[in-house]
């Protein structure tokens, strides 16, 4: 029997301070009106994504970059808390892709010339990075990316925007810019192949799934907080709808799911940072629970709002649609549950990593 991993420590004061900085910055730079405005921007907009410059200036975009490129050299537990805030604000744009996935991938595989060329700019917010890994058919924010990090047949490639052809694939979440990417892999674009690429791709995918899980918790928390506020003021039958048990139970169940999801995300963040053998299980647990929690929160939020929540003019749908799309991205709950099933149940597997 293997020794279970120790419980992760509580967030440090530095981690909480970074989170608070991000929260304050996002509430200033990315209010709901800004999220809504992102829906109307042309897909090929050259301008930086919402709050991008401010986030970069605060060290958030580059927090994963090595310090010699002006980055923070931070690891998953630090940025997971920030990703939660990005979800809470429904921040549009590729913070997840650039910061959690692409920067560490380039830093690991890029070589001096490529890192010199891109990482400083990415950390400073001048260069936006997009990623297309594994089976994902679409690349988010490809149109406004300067460099795309793409997987091809087990190899990692870095391709400049000018060298790819995009077909926009509009998403139900209008602030999410998806495109199919056509491009030509070549020796010049290839950063790594073989086992070295495979290990980095697996780690990059888990960082993406973890970041999505953290954002989903933030999205879900906002959905429930906003709905609780509404349920306190909307009256029917002469009393606040939040006093009705049916409404309470919708919201309480959603709250319980969120409360159980976050410790899984936090645990996964430490598994990603520690690169232990249980990383895949920890990440899949986090993403599966966070996806389900966010989808449940979206259902509860809409139901408890009634028709006002169903209207396009109300802000609720900005978060609801982010819940739908992020829940499906980076492996949905079913995909991650199956990944756990394969690891714990199949004959060749080592069994549960900790039980």
């Amino acid at each position: 029997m293997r020794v279970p991993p120790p419980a992760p420590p509580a967030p440090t004061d530095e981690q909480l301070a970074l989170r608070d900085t991000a929260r304050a910055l996002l509430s200033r730079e990315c209010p709901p009106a800004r999220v809504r405005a992102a829906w109307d921007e042309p897909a090929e907009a050259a301008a930086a994504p919402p709050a991008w410059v401010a986030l970069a200036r605060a060290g958030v975009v580059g927090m994963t970059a090595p310090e010699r490129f002006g980055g923070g050299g931070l690891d998953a537990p630090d940025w997971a808390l920030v990703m939660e805030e990005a979800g809470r604000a429904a921040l549009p744009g590729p913070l997840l892709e650039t910061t959690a996935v692409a920067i560490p991938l380039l830093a690991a595989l890029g070589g001096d010339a490529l890192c010199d060329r891109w990482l400083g700019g990415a950390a400073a917010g001048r260069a936006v990075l997009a990623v297309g890994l594994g089976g994902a058919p679409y690349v988010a924010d490809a149109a406004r990316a300067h460099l795309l990090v793409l997987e091809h047949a087990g190899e990692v490639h870095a391709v400049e925007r000018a060298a790819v052809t995009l077909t926009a694939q509009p998403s139900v979440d209008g602030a999410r810019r998806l495109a199919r990417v056509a491009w030509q892999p070549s020796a010049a674009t290839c950063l790594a192949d073989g086992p070295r690429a495979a290990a980095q791709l697996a780690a990059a995918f888990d960082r993406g799934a973890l970041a999505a899980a953290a954002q989903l918790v933030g999205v879900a928390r906002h959905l429930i907080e906003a709905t609780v506020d509404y349920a306190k003021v909307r009256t029917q039958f002469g009393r606040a709808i939040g006093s009705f048990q049916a409404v309470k139970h919708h919201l309480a169940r959603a709250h319980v799911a969120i409360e159980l999801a976050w410790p899984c995300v936090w645990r996964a963040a430490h598994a990603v940072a520690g690169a232990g053998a249980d990383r895949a299980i920890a990440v899949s647990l986090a993403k599966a629970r966070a996806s389900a929690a966010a989808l449940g929160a979206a259902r509860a939020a809409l139901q408890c709002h009634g028709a006002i929540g169903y209207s396009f003019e109300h802000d609720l749908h900005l978060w609801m649609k982010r819940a739908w799309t992020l829940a499906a991205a980076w492996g949905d709950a079913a995909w991650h549950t199956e990944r756990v099933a394969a690891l714990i149940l199949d004959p060749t597997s080592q069994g549960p990593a900790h039980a």
Partner: protein
Amino acid sequence: MSEARAATGDAATDDAAFRAEARAWLRAHVPRHLPPMGSPEGFAAHVAWERALFDAGWAVPAWPARYGGRDATIAQWLIFEEEYYAAGGPPHVTQNGVSLLAPALFELGTDEQKDRLLRPMAAAEVLWAQGWSEPGAGSDLAAVRSTATRVDGGWRLHGQKTWSTRASFCHAMHGLFRTDPDAPRHKGLTYFLVPLDAPGVRVSGFRRLDGDLDFAEVFLDDVFVPDRDVVGAVGGGWKVAMATTGSERGMILRSPGRFLAAAQRLVELYRRARATASPLDRAAVARAWMDAQAYQHYTWQQAGKLAAGQSVAAESSVAKLAWSELDVAICDAALGVLGPRAELVEGAPDAVDDGAWIKAYQFALAGPIYAGTNEIQLNVVAERLLGLPRE
């Protein structure tokens, strides 16, 4: 629970040593199979095991040493629970004393009460039953009608308690009685300790869903209880009961170790039966296993908050909803895997694991009912954690 030590590098080393020591002892001593608790011979067998645990210092690891514990931290207690159930340890027959009465005594009992009651409770010398529910008072606990009337040197108790787990095998009962019929509902209650062999007490066992003799009614007719067996203030019974509910709902009663072990047995069951299990069973097994992991991570986070001196009061309702539903999910998944053999009970020649899963399923179904129904817990979450208005 004793003062938690701050997490340090040394604590990690201590915890690893603690785990190793617990594991070694448990592997060598946990009994293979005990008959169900709800029978005279099963109860006696569980009591004997509990005494062996106590003698080795493992019955109440997190209690102070003077009461028979070893001053373990919360983290160590969670580790012990993981090891206990992983080794196949049976549920604790002392539970309704150790997990339900003791937390209230630690918080509100007198030193005399603690010195007199805690050690025999942990040593399984005095077995305790919980006497809260009455025919007219279930979820609405403050509706209890059993009374206690002041007399010289103590009180005279009248009334009826029900659903009292294993009271027909226990020595004493702790519960709520109405001492002031004119006071507002929650204010007129007092918490009493009642010997079940006192004159005027009649205990009548009856069977649970699974057929075991685990329930009992307790009838009280002019039962004398001395003043020293009042817990907390006269009229302060509700406060004592609330000191219990936090632990009853939360991790003290149902730590993750129990469910991690059940989830592990589920994985092993699936591996044995995979040839006949469907893809939907497989998904249910994985999901239930993940539920147990999530509850573990949640509990460790809560334990960290406790160790840091934060209070986790209404959060115990979140825990209760989580553990009770995941327990049902684990059993549901197992029954799905077993298919046509799921209904076979202990003794059936073809029963897998001697019918343990259908037995466990029946007990799991009680989880959403006892310790405050899940509907009540959802109300608590909504009102106390989300701040929604009362009905």
